[in-house]
């Protein structure tokens, strides 16, 4: 897979095979698998003292977060693909915030499920022991891929 900014402030993602599309689809899968309560409910805990927050604000945020995932899922599924499953996906500037939000949900979900960020501080030998768990290894790889996508979005499109 290749990811690069374009001259018109879009991000172009070139997928080279079925695996690449699967990795992109995992953004939505991971984002949808937020453990315990939904993200909007988790954030509402910070405003628990406000009686109206859960009733008025949380549903609105929940809709917003869901629509981010739906948008990304549709963009991936409707992207032009050749028979050999090569193809390109463009994230336009006006959609960059939506993509960033969905990817962020995916990273938040992975962090909550696997505590991915703690591996940044581990020594190499400790990492190799932990990496024997294939689900964890895959989660860490996806987390770093999502982080890279976000960094490119931030550097070339959002900021």
């Amino acid at each position, binding site marked *: 897979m290749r990811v690069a900014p374009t001259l018109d402030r879009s991000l172009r993602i070139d997928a080279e095979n079925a695996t690449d599309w699967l990795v992109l689809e995992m953004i939505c899968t991971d984002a949808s698998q937020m453990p315990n309560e939904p993200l*909007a409910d988790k954030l509402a805990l*910070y*405003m628990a003292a406000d009686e109206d927050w859960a009733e008025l604000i949380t549903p609105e945020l929940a809709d917003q977060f869901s629509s981010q995932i739906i948008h990304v899922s549709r963009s991936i599924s409707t992207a032009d693909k050749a028979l050999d499953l090569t193809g390109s996906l463009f994230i336009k500037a006006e959609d960059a915030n939506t993509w960033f939000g969905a990817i962020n949900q995916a990273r938040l979900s992975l962090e909550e499920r696997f505590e991915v*960020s703690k591996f940044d501080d581990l020594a190499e030998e400790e990492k190799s022991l932990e990496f024997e768990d294939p689900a964890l290894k895959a989660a860490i790889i996806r987390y770093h891929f999502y*982080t890279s996508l*976000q960094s490119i979005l*931030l550097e070339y499109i959002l900021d």
Partner: protein
Amino acid sequence: MHHVQQMRLESPSTDFQTKTTTQTTTPWSVVIFDDPVNLMAYVTLILKRVFGYNKTQAEKYMLEIHNAGKSIVWTGEKEQAEHYVQQLHSHQLKATIQKVQ
């Protein structure tokens, strides 16, 4: 923030007298908490967007969030503070309001 409020108090007689009081509205702060997921550059960007801070101010708050675990990023009226927290939540940042002691 001061609001001047005029109150009419009925006197024992049938006359009215006017008393002017000055009421102070308690300010509220917006607090953002650190988390291991949101990128530092993203937190800086959101501080610029939501509060209109310049890059230097936004980075100062971002580093305080990162190093101290939280930062008071704004203080003022409660309603506006709640509005800011709503915006911060919509960007998936952990934030709350607290009354200034």
